[in-house]
């Protein structure tokens, strides 16, 4: 029982990462109806942005690991990724806006391969050790929890889940309560009509890419805190898993992406713990196939409105 609960905690930590990345897929799909396959590599850029700014912010905040320093690294990496996301949209996707959707999809695959290979030549192909920006240790659970005190919850896991929750609430606020959020929803509903009502589609699309990429950047830092080793190809697998999570939750749906991410994380932990690690990836991708066959709109996705 304790082992099972522990696996759920492990899965929740990993699932939160997938959730953050999945949000970017689903947001871009919402406004542009295409899958930005370079999104997983933006997550990798976030981790490397953290690697380069960490020594600098650590010095600024007194040398050792601290919450303030970690927060600064997180925000800087999010800013770098937002800028990267906007730049990718501007340079690669915007010129193809009125071309067939397949063109931009294939361009996204190209951007992804470019980032992976450029990453290997710029950062080096070997794994880098991520600096300790926050001391990751197991929390001392109170003895009054009885048998549950035997569970291990680490600072990193708590931080991942906490930061993910905060970002989710913030994102919900942006989408529901701000003018830009309103414009995003209008654009997702009908780009032509939104444009006629005075929505500047170009700005809203750039904003959507920036926001989604910032979340991927946060995921990059949160992963690095837990696993302390990063490499230029780390976005490949994580990106694919998050894509499965977005489809599972219902692509285009924000709560769906979050739910899908957590479910995929839990599924992975349970498969590794109780079946075999070799079946982890096959089972996750089998979920993609089953969802597409049985309920293509995903768990929380609305009915697809086919445009005429």
């Amino acid at each position, binding site marked *: 029982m*304790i*082992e099972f609960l*522990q*696996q759920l905690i*492990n*899965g929740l*930590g*990993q699932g939160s990462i997938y959730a953050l990345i999945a949000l970017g897929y689903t947001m871009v799909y919402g406004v542009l109806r295409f899958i930005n396959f370079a999104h997983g590599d933006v997550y990798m850029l976030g981790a490397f942005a953290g690697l380069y700014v960490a020594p600098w912010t650590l010095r600024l905040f007194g040398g050792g690991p601290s919450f303030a320093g970690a927060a600064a690294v997180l925000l800087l990496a999010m800013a770098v990724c937002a800028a990267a996301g906007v730049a990718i949209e501007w340079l690669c996707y915007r010129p193809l806006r009125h071309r067939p959707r397949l063109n931009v999809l294939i361009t996204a695959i190209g951007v992804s391969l470019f980032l992976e290979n450029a990453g290997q030549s710029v950062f*080096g*192909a*070997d*794994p880098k*050790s991520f600096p300790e920006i926050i001391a*990751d*240790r*197991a929390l001392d659970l109170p003895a009054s929890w009885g048998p549950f005190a035997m569970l*291990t919850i*680490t600072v990193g896991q708590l931080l991942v889940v906490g930061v993910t929750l905060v970002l989710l609430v913030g994102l919900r606020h942006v989408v529901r309560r701000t003018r830009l959020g309103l414009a995003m929803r209008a654009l997702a509903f009908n780009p032509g009509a939104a444009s006629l009502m005075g929505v500047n589609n170009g700005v809203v699309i750039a904003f959507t890419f920036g926001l989604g990429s910032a979340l991927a950047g946060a995921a990059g830092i949160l*992963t690095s805190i*837990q*696993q*302390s*080793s990063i*490499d230029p190809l*780390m976005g490949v697998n994580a990106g694919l898993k998050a894509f499965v999570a977005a489809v599972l939750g219902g692509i285009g749906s924000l709560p769906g992406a979050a739910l899908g991410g957590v479910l995929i994380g839990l599924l*992975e*932990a*349970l498969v*590794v*713990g*109780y079946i*075999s*690690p*070799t079946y982890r990836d096959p089972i996750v991708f089998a979920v993609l196939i089953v969802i597409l066959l049985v309920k293509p709109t995903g768990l929380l996705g609305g009915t697809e409105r086919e445009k005429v």
Partner: protein
Amino acid sequence: MPPLPRLLAAALLLAAPAAPAQDTIKVGEFAALTGGIASFGQSSHKGTLLAIDELNAAGGVLGKKLALLTEDDQSLAGQPATIVRKLISQDHVVAILGEVASSKSLEAAPICQENHIPMISPASTNPKVTETGDYIFRVCFIDPFQGTVMAKFAASRGWKKVAVLTDVKQDYSMGLAQFFKAGVVQGGGEIVKEQSYSSGDKDFKPQLTSLKAAQPEAIFVPGYYAEVALIAKQARLLGIKAPLLGGDGWMGDSLLKVAGTALDGCYFSCHFSADDKAPAVQGFLASYRAKYGAEPDDMAALGYDSAMILAAAIKRAGTTDSAALRDALAATKDHPGVTGRITLDDKRNATKPAVILGVGQGGFHFVESVAP
């Protein structure tokens, strides 16, 4: 032989004399200079290069200088085959040195065998490597020995209930685990849980949680240093206090950089110890420090031995003709190597002792030496 390869072979024979005058002996090397196990590749390459430089400084072999042609396989599967083909067909090397990882050597070995070019692996310990054919040699001991040594070591420390965590992508890891498990059961111990991972994984908490539930007294992790460091860190985070045991794959300079103190009190088997007072070892240490300003590790020592054994065989053969060179290599006996006195047995494997090192205080210390 079907007609086309025969024609090609004839064409090659005709082309060979047209190559530029042979004032050097070309030796090919393939190593993982970048990528996931770059630490191994860099070390073995530095050791090999040191040996070649020393040989050339002493006048070379058979009156000719040795030229080392090194290619990087980027730690990627599929690369060794391409590289070794290039070294043999374009560069016309007389022998191939490489690689550390068994999976990589297993890719290259059939090509060397097919072309009758002797290949010496410095550090691939999986038995299958030299079983490929009679042109494939190694200067290290093999997995059955290494796995058995660690099983005996666990028994001698009184650790009866052991768990195993294997890297399913590495032939090396699977081999070590297999012989370790057999050794533990033979010694009256018990394997309480088995788990696995794949090279490149970063999150091991699910596997470790499952191992923790079985309450092992020690955990055998016969993986490579990059993953082992993360495994150790996450194991301690999850409150696993059992010592980790491993093989020579642990020896990488980033092991302790990433793991910090998480590996204190753990043990692994490897090929040599800098505490050894043998003149071959001390001479090697001095010249390695002088050339690179750093401490050599196992892989450097094995790389050095592989090049020295090749040079000695070329001298004894008196020629670089591949069949004569092969026979001379096979006859290697009592070579005073850095990693012990090396004799190649009839299966072209080195028989020599293993060293068990302990981890602590930010470094490694000699624990014991186990003879075959």
